[in-house]
Structures are given as structure tokens and as C-alpha cells.
């Protein structure tokens, strides 16, 4: 039976007469990477602020690690968050920013800070003040700050904003790694669906302050019909190559395109096999167009 480390019950947050979050019931399993998807203004950040303890709900409640109400204070230290822009002291270096938070958490030792800096790729920044950091560097440091104390629940709001493609891959790999190795549950919001789909094990789709759907990655994959789309010079010959690889769930859609609906993680391997068989592949990718279409259909006005 799955253990939910976070459960919200009719959680609401109202600013004036505007409901930013309008009665959501969220459930996050231990060890999951839960992706919260929604358009700008859907209520993602407000939800994460409440879960992170930075903002109080107007009504409703939520439980963390089985504790709720007044008992939440006991487990607050097990939750860490990066909400909106990373909060950094501009006149301090990356090391000093981390040191301040480590002191707050009672963590001693320079090695711990150096390891964190290395983990997010900031080992070489030296004494450079964070006010001179690029957005990507700030984002990396924000993630490092969120990792201080090795929380059980990591709440990340748009953590890959401003990162270059290489940085996105690094952070994505790091999140997957800490989730698997350290068992950290990650609640992550993003509007970049393609990136989220590469790490998330569960999804929550938000629209206008409401949680319109919760589903697992498998369920989303089924509903979105994620597929590999390959543009090749000889589709008929490519079909026989795929047959030879044991791939049966595919179809030739036009004179140069094949859609493969299984073994999505083997895109590189399929590409190599087709090339080896003498099929010229001009484009091959996991098509996520339908993921976006699905998202748009669930959040349509």
C-alpha cells in the first residue's frame, strides 16, 4: 500500500476576493517525483508556498508525514523549498549563502558545503558574490540551498527556469539521482512539460486554482499516446528492421514517417539499429505534441 507523505484536504488560499487556490486535494506518495503542471496563474506557486510553510491556507488543511494542524511544526524541518526566484544575499558568495543556512540547520563542516556546490556545478565559483551570478547560477545555488539538511520532501517551483540546456540535463539527472538514492520525495512545478515528463513519476494538473487531475506517468503516457516519431528515407525497409528488433507497436503514417508506440526509452538504440541497417534517419524524437494537447484539453477555459 502506498504511503502518502503529503495530503491536502480542500486547501484554499484567497487573496482579497480572488481564490488563488480553490479547494485542492493533492496526494503525494513517498519517493515520488510529483510534477505540478499548470499555466501561469493556475495556483502552483501558492500551493507550494503553503506546503513549504511560507504561507498559511485560508481554509482547508494538509498533512505532512502524517502530521497535521499544530503537529506540523514537528515535521517542518523535513521540508525544504525553492519558491520562485532563489533567495540569496547578493553581497555574500555561494559558499557564504550556504554556510548561513547550514548554521541555521546546525550542520557543521566545510566539506558538506563544498559537496553541495559540486553537486550543482558551482564548485569553481570561489568568492564571487551572488549578485554577479547569472540566472542559471542563481538557480543552481537555490537548488543547493534547498538540498541543505537532506530534506525528506523537496518542494521546487520552476527549478529549471533560466538554466541552459546542459544545466537542465544536470539538474534533471541530479533530481532523479537524489530521489532514487536518498529516497527524497520531490514536488516540482513547471510549465515546461517536456522536461517534467522526463523526471516525474506522478502528475497533478492545475487550472484556475483547482486540481483538475492527478495521474501517474504511466497513465499520462497511455492517455497522451507518447510515441517515437522517425523521419526515414525508406519506411517499408525500416518496418522490417523494427520487426527484427521485436517492435510490433508501430505504424507508417506517410511516405517518410513512422510512429513507434513502445520502448520510448530506447530511442537512441532504435536510431542506431536503423542506421546500421542502412536506413537514413533524418529525424527521430519522442513526440510530446499530444502531451501538450492533453494538457491544453484539461486546462481549457
Amino acid at each position, binding site marked *: 500500500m502506498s504511503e502518502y507523505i503529503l495530503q491536502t484536504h480542500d486547501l484554499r488560499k484567497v487573496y482579497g476576493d480572488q481564490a488563488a487556490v480553490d479547494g485542492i486535494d493533492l496526494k503525494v506518495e513517498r519517493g515520488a517525483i510529483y510534477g505540478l503542471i499548470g499555466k501561469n496563474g493556475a495556483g502552483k506557486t501558492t500551493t507550494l*508556498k503553503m506546503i*513549504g*510553510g*511560507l*504561507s*498559511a491556507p485560508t481554509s482547508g488543511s494538509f498533512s505532512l508525514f502524517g502530521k497535521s494542524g499544530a503537529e506540523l*511544526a*514537528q515535521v*517542518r*524541518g523535513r*521540508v*525544504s*523549498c*525553492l*519558491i*520562485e*526566484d*532563489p*533567495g*540569496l*544575499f*547578493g*553581497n*555574500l558568495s555561494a559558499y*557564504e*549563502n550556504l*554556510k*548561513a*543556512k547550514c*548554521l*541555521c*540547520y*546546525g550542520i557543521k563542516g566545510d566539506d558538506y558545503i563544498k559537496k553541495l556546490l559540486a553537486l550543482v556545478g558551482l564548485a569553481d565559483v570561489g568568492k564571487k558574490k551572488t549578485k554577479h551570478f547569472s540566472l542559471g547560477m542563481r538557480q543552481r545555488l537555490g537548488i543547493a*540551498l*534547498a538540498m*541543505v*539538511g537532506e530534506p525528506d520532501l523537496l518542494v521546487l517551483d520552476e527549478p529549471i527556469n533560466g538554466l541552459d540546456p546542459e544545466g537542465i540535463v544536470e539538474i534533471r539527472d541530479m533530481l532523479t539521482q537524489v530521489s532514487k538514492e536518498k529516497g527524497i520525495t520531490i514536488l516540482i512545478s513547471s510549465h515546461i512539460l517536456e522536461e517534467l515528463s522526463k523526471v516525474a513519476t506522478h502528475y497533478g494538473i492545475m487550472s484556475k486554482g483547482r486540481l483538475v487531475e492527478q495521474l501517474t506517468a504511466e497513465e499520462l503516457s497511455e492517455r497522451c499516446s507518447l510515441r517515437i516519431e522517425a523521419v526515414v528515407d525508406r519506411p517499408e525497409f525500416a518496418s522490417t528492421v523494427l520487426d527484427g528488433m521485436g517492435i510490433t507497436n508501430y505504424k507508417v503514417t506517410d511516405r517518410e514517417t513512422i510512429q513507434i508506440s513502445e520502448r520510448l526509452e530506447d530511442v537512441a538504440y532504435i536510431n542506431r539499429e536503423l542506421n546500421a541497417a542502412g536506413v537514413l534517419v533524418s529525424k527521430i524524437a519522442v513526440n510530446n505534441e499530444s502531451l501538450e494537447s492533453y494538457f491544453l484539453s484539461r486546462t481549457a477555459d
Partner: protein
Amino acid sequence: MLNMIRMELYRMVRMKSFWVILIIVGVVNVITVSLNDVMKDSPELQQAIEAAESEKDNPVANIGMSITMERNEDGNYGFLEIITSAAKGMLCALFIGIFTVIFATADFNSGYIKNYGGAVKHRWQMVFAKGTAVLAYTVIFFALFIASSCLGVFLGGHKVVMDPAGKIFEVLCIQGLLHVVFGWIIMSLCLIVRNNLISMIVACCISMHVFAALYSLADKGLRKLGWKNADILDYTVSGRIMKYGIDSSNILNSTLVVAAAFAIAACLFGSLYLTKKDLV
């Protein structure tokens, strides 16, 4: 709690403004104290000071800062005179207020509060930790102020005459306490309004006697209403800072009551507000 205090002290000493304010105060104090003699002995300046003094109907209603350091009969300076002249002139309060505003709002303005604010068990602990840092700063400030004043006296060719130890202890403790409480009031204001500009204006207005002038106006109104001896300033921390000097043992208890009342109120309001309101 201790960890949070450690963090606040760490970021305090890492702040540029911490060092800038201390250096400015130290250097300016050495120069002004050492030049005090020159100013005292200048007949033109004496005339100007006397003219200004004669215009004073009510000393607390004058806006601005006036610090007068009197020499003993032998031409030297008393240790307590050095401390109380600057403290009563609100010079120390001004700099402590400025630093407190910068310090107390730094984690809110930078957003650093988001990194640890949510994980804090009880938010009053944040007020307590910041208050402890303000206390530490006040102690450091006073130590530097006394040291630089003494250095200025020596550079001016005079000596510092020590007062009775008990008296020094009493005045230092009371003035220190009043300044700490003043810092806490400004800190709580910062946490409530979360606006550098407004907090800085209030801190400067209190230190530069603008509030004292307003209290005087209010006193006039209260006297017309029948409260014959109305003196609001007497019930404020800034008023007590201006009044408490070498011969103020008679108001020791009432000063302690005023300090305690404002300390409790400042911490209570700051904690309550922080507990009830969203951090970001």
C-alpha cells in the same frame, strides 16, 4: 533556536553595512572628540552655540542632533560624560537604528527568508534570533564608541577621568538596555511594515527628535484637555535615552519599567505579526 541565532550573527558580521557603519562611527567619533577642544575654545563658535541655546524654549522640541561634551574643572573629560553626551544626543540610537533597519529587512528583501522560514518550528524564534543579533550589535557599537571617544580625548591632549565603577556600570547598563530596546522597536517595525524606506524614516525621525517635537505638540493638546503635566516623551524609550545620565538614579526604576514595557510590546507585536502573516 541557538542555530538560528548563530545564523543571524554570521550574516550580521558578513554584512557590508555592519563594517561600514562601525568604521564611519569610529573614525568620525575620533575626529569630532579630538576636535572638541578646538570648538570649545573658539569664541565665535561659543557665541553661536549660546545664541542657539538661548532660543531654546523647550529642548526636546528642537529637531536635529546636538551633542555637547563638557570638560571637568581640571580640563579633562569624565568617562561617563563621554558615554552619556553621545547617547543622550541620540547619536548612538541613530546608527543602531540605521543598522537594524538594514539588518532586519535583509532576508525579506533578498528573499533568503524563503530558504529557512518555512522550516522554522515557531516563528517567534526568528524575532528572538534577530533580537539577539541586534543586542550583540549594540554591545559591539558601544564598545567601539567608548574606545574611539577615549582615543579622541587622548589625541586632543586630555585624559579620561574614571568615574565610580558602580556608577559606570549603572549608566552603561541602562543606556545599553535602552538602546537595545530601541533597536528591537525598529526591528519589529521592520518585520511588520517590511519596507526599508518607511522603517528608516521612522528610525531617523525618532533619533533626530522629530517624534519628540510631535510629542510636544501632543503634550500641549493634552494639557488643554486637563492633563497638566503631560509629557509623552517621558514614557518613551527615546525620551529615557535623552534623559538618563550621570545623576539619574532617581528615575532608574521608572526607566526600567519603560524599557521592559517597550521590549515586551516590540517582541510580542513582531512575533504575533510574523506568526499570523505570510512570510512571502
